[in-house]
């Protein structure tokens, strides 16, 4: 765990570029520092490996004040990846990766094995690349080596300062995917600086939004997106951002929270009445009436009711039990896929406790679009002024 306690940093002794920063980064967590240029992201990161030192406050790793650790020792146990990569141009890929193991006196076989293993880990064929020089590699390949080199002595903590910013969008996306895969496998504590919100949302377990040397909001991507703490965060995230990340929209955001229901013992006449009243043609059949949590047992539509209007027909006899429940955290993309593939217009949302939480209907999805369009209207109105 990396912990900042009331950390301030001034370069000139007058103004603080970092101001009373408190931050707790858990082990195995990928934390994003995001903010505009000059907001102090790089400074914050560089204080972790003592490339810069705090003017006041304490930074500790696993409870140990980093000022009590020899900086060389400290840095060798922290991987460091920068935007400009900084491979040693006069050394081969192998020599680049093996440098810190070499300085740590690893024996030759162990070093060589590690270099090959790391190349494979970053998806480069060792037989092809191990003896090449950095300038023979593309930008994306060089940064893969940058990552491999940072992992060489298997540090627990890795610092990455805009590592993919200089790459073209396609390569960037590939490297992001691979970082996620790698992180799944290795569970490092990663501090990742970026100014790209898409990247932050995609990679971060948690995101720290920085402004003027302070952390404005430190939260999961979902919360940053859905509950921005103030206008700045909202502006920074971008109003229409949610739309660009449909995988961040979950069933619980899309669903109607109080869908029309009917209990097992009710009659078709009652069903028709409810449909009329609620202006819907889909009723969720639940195990009991009243306000207590209910379990979904089926559904009825006008089709189930056809020709069964007599009072002795109860819902339990005529309902369709072939409903497809989704969980609250099923995302928009998955929801749409299920609707399309299973040809359903309605999906009940069921919580982990097994009770009905809501219903996704075509209308509820359409309403989401309507909301977004209202937002756009607002923006246009602003421009006209």
């Amino acid at each position, binding site marked *: 765990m990396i912990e900042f306690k009331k950390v301030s940093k001034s370069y000139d002794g007058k103004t603080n570029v970092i101001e009373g920063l408190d931050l707790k980064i858990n082990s195995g967590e990928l934390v994003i520092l995001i903010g505009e240029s000059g907001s102090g992201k790089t400074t914050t990161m560089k204080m972790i490996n003592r490339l810069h030192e705090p003017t006041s406050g304490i930074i500790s790793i696993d409870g140990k004040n980093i000022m009590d650790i020899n900086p060389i020792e400290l840095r060798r146990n922290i991987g460091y990846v920068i935007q400009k990569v*900084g491979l040693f141009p006069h050394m081969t890929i192998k020599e680049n990766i093996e440098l810190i193991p070499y300085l740590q006196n690893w024996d030759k076989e162990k070093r060589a094995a590690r270099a090959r293993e790391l190349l494979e880990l970053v998806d480069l064929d060792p037989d092809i690349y191990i003896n090449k020089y950095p300038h023979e590699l593309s930008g994306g390949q060089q940064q893969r080596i940058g990552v491999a080199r940072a992992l060489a002595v298997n540090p627990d903590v890795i610092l990455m300062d805009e590592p993919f910013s200089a790459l073209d969008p396609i390569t960037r996306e590939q490297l992001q995917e691979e970082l996620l895969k790698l992180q799944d496998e290795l569970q490092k504590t990663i501090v990742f600086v970026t100014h790209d919100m898409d990247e932050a949302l995609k990679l971060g377990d948690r995101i720290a939004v920085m402004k003027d040397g302070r952390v404005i909001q430190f939260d999961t991507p979902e919360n940053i997106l859905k509950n921005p703490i103030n206008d700045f965060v909202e502006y920074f995230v971008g109003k229409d951002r949610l739309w660009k990340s449909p995988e961040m929209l979950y069933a619980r955001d899309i669903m109607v929270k109080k869908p029309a229901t009917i209990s097992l013992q009710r009659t078709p006449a009652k069903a028709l009445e409810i449909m009329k009243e609620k202006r819907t043609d889909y009723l969720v059949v639940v195990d009991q009436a009243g306000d207590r949590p209910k379990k979904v047992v089926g559904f009825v539509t006008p089709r189930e009711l056809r020709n069964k209007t007599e009072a002795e027909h109860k819902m339990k006899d005529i309902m369709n039990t072939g409903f497809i429940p989704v969980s609250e955290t099923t995302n928009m993309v998955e929801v749409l896929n299920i609707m399309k593939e299973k040809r359903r217009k309605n999906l009940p949302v069921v919580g982990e406790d097994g009770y009905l939480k809501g219903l996704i209907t075509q209308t509820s999805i359409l309403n989401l679009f309507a909301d977004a369009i209202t937002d756009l209207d607002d923006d246009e109105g602003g421009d006209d002024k």
Partner: protein
Amino acid sequence: MERMSFFQFFMNRIDQVIRLTGQHLQITGTAVLLAIVIGVPIGILISKHRKLANPVLGIANVFQTLPSLALFGLIIPILGIGLVPSIFVLFLYALLPIIKNTYTGINNVDPAVIEAGVGMGMTYSQILRMVQIPLALSVIMAGIRIATVINIGTATIAALIGAGGLGELIFRGISMDNAHMILSGAIPAALLALLVDWLLGMVEHFITPKGLRGK
């Protein structure tokens, strides 16, 4: 006196020419070696302590700017004449290109490379030894090459204060109004400069790290 061809004149004195060439190389070589031993560390030092760079380069520049003849003249009251003052003056001449190229060579190493090195836990001396010097080596070598070639020229003047070398033939030829003798000194001196320049150029090429060649 029977007119001899230059070639005959030259062949008659070939032993002397060879001896003086050797002497010439010895004076130049000693001066350049001293300048390397002193200049490279100074160049490294001022690349670490940037504030020192301007004053140091300024002083070295003064030696370079002074006319060589004037410098030889100035040194006589202090060190007298002979080999030692000659080598000393040539040494001063060789300093600037060597200090300057060491300084620039090390400074021109991509800051991102240094940052990566520091960030991954290399010490200052490891970075210097394993990164900065190897990357600056060909630039340093270029400085050594310039210094050597300049010194081969300047060393001919050192004959004036009794250093020997090919300059001896040139100045004696001038005073005796003997064109053949002048040429016996001047031509080997010119060829020597060209040859050494070429040789050191080869060295420069071969010490350029493979990863940087053909970029």
